[in-house]
């Protein structure tokens, strides 16, 4: 049964956020007998409550609090108040993620070494290697039930996948299958198997897709060591004169200020909210924000090189039927500078319902060139491009002039595409067009990036304290009992969907934290 801890309990680990990083870390620590309080800004909606309707679900789950966007990226023009499409709810973005669970490639931990000096790119090697992470990747895959790992079968391919597969074969691609998905291909872990319902982005009403909401969190609560407090918005982290954090101040569900004491604080609010919280925690001792002696907090924001390609066919596809991310092509994920860019990208099937297709196919467009595409909605197939984008110091989260309902400065998300990002996206659009044309598409559409779903890198991991915010364990270089536990730790972004790596790092971090506590080192 779920624990209840006192606000004055100085022995708890406080985790800010309950998604892939925070939810996993909370359960892993609770399983080791460590007392944990997870403060989650959003409400708790169990999976029965999810809604098979795009806009209604968006209102239910999305982070709708104010944010601002700046820079030359198109999202800042089309969606100036919605730079990212991520979740504010218990379970975080594991409620709406698609489930793709790919390991990083070895060279993606060593991009400074592998890619060399790219002007304007703030490349840095990770302070860890694929070999170090492999045992933890295996544990994460087991935890999440990832298909095509651990003897688990792949999911069946839907219509959208069949078209991708046929086109991939025509183009000579070799690595195309229904992916490594954290979606049950058979019942497992007291959860259903996939019923090909679609609406993966709206929360899986079958519970077939892994989410911390109905795996890690209830398992942690069952230990009696984990308490989750929904609708608890953390305002700032407090520290003492000896440079240790002592707790957090938050607004509870009634808007009242509360102060939860803590032995350790782990920040897992995603790559926009986590740096915002560290910056909003500035004090006279740390005027630039907590853990920011390097000046890197908020910098090197990455969002992956994305874009979509939709192909229109003479006959029906019904791409929305079944698993949203139903297939993947990995042939372009390699690092091959002969293509004119460093790093690589994946193709993954994607579909949007009619309401979101209208909003995102070509934001701002109108007239018959646009509406004739929607007239053939049922004949569209879709793929998403997801590739490695270049970290840049000037792509960053800063505190905006805009304030939220608590009077806290909100995050501004500034992005300018790097030339490498633009070259990669153009290559992806071109290959995607060829693929669909090879199987008879009569029109093909290059769709610009959606508001960011992969948000990475703003508290980067580094060997040397001057280069980043956290060490190889996600422990901040400046403050021993302050950790970062989400995708903001990523030194660089890789070409892979980030959730599996976030979960992997959280499992590993939990071991480190438990050992450090045992030794009274923190």
């Amino acid at each position: 049964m779920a624990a209840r801890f006192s606000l004055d309990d100085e022995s708890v680990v406080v985790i800010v956020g309950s998604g892939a990083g925070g939810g996993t870390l909370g359960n892993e620590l609770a399983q080791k007998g460590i007392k944990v309080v997870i403060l989650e800004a959003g409400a708790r909606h169990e999976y029965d409550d999810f809604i098979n309707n795009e806009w209604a679900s968006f209102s239910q789950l999305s982070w709708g609090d104010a944010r601002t966007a700046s820079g030359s990226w198109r999202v800042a023009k089309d969606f100036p108040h919605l730079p990212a499409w991520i979740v504010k709810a218990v379970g975080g973005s594991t409620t709406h993620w698609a489930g793709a669970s790919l390991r990083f490639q070895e060279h993606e931990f060593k991009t400074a070494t592998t890619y060399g000096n790219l002007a304007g790119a703030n490349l840095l090697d990770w302070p860890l290697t694929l070999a170090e992470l492999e045992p933890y990747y295996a544990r994460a895959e087991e935890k999440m039930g990832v298909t095509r790992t651990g003897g688990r079968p792949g999911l069946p391919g839907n219509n959208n996948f069949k078209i991708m597969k046929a086109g991939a074969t025509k183009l000579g691609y070799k690595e195309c299958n229904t992916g490594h998905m954290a979606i049950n291909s058979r019942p497992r872990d007291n959860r259903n198997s996939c019923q090909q319902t679609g609406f993966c982005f709206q929360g899986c009403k079958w519970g077939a897709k892994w989410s911390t909401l109905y795996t890690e969190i209830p398992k942690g609560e069952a230990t009696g060591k984990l308490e989750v407090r929904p609708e608890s918005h953390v305002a700032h982290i407090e520290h003492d004169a000896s440079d240790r954090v002592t707790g957090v101040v938050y607004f509870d569900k009634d808007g009242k200020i509360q102060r939860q004491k803590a032995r350790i604080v782990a920040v897992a609010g995603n790559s926009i909210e986590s740096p915002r919280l560290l910056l909003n925690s500035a004090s006279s001792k740390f005027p630039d924000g907590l853990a920011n002696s390097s000046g890197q907090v908020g910098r090197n924001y990455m969002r992956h090189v994305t874009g979509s390609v939709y192909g229109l066919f003479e006959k029906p596809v019904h791409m929305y039927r079944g698993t949203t991310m139903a297939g993947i092509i990995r042939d372009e994920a390699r690092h091959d500078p002969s293509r004119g860019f460093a790093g690589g990208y994946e193709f993954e099937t994607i579909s949007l319902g009619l309401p979101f297709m209208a909003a995102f196919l070509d934001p701002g467009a109108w007239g018959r060139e646009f509406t004739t595409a929607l007239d053939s909605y049922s004949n569209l197939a879709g793929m998403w491009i997801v590739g490695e984008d270049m970290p840049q110091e000037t792509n960053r989260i800063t505190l905006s002039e805009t304030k939220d309902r608590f009077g806290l400065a909100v995050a501004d998300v500034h992005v300018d595409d790097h030339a490498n990002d633009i070259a990669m996206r153009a290559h992806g659009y071109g290959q995607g067009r060829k693929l669909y044309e090879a199987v008879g598409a009569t029109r093909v559409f290059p769709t610009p990036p959606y508001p960011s779903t992969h948000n990475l890198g703003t508290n980067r991991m580094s060997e040397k304290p001057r280069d980043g915010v956290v060490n190889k364990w996600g422990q901040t270089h400046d403050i021993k009992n302050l950790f970062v536990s989400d995708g903001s730790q990523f030194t660089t972004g890789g070409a892979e969907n980030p959730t599996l790596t976030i979960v992997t790092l959280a499992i590993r971090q939990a071991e480190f934290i438990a050992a450090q506590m045992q030794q009274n080192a923190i």
Partner: protein
Amino acid sequence: MSLDKAPHEQGQPKVGVSRRNFLKRSSLAFSAAIAITPAGALLNTSEAWGLEVKGLKPETARTLILIARDIYPHDRVPDRFYAIAVRPWDTKAASDPATAAEIEGFIAGLDKAAGNGGYVGLGWEADRVALLREASSSNAFAMLRADLVTSLYNQPALWSIFGYEGESFSKGGYINRGFNDITWL
């Protein structure tokens, strides 16, 4: 008659989506297809719906229905859905004079640019779209288009026209209903 029920739910024959009906409708001038009643409501007898207008001039609401179609033209979608998409502006205008003034000003500008007969008097879509293109950099147009992309396409009743099936959980998903039924590849 109201917008919220389809004609066939009100005991009327279902109208609007067949090619024959489309041709019949489009042969009428738009201003004749949607009449303004003495009480200031809009009435479309061929599609069997009416719309009370509360915050805008009835003529303005009628023009907005045509503008909505000109922004997002779908020949198989009856006017009823465009009328439903326009209604939130009328509701907002009823309680917000600034919104009412912005919309009325935008329509007045279009009517003036269109000359005698105003915007709805321009019989050719291409002429109306040319006016909209000229107005498309205005804040009012940007607001109307941004609202419309949700208020038009987020109507579940029109999704079937596009072949989108909507909610599927209650039907058990598509695992036994054609998730992999393509045979033409």
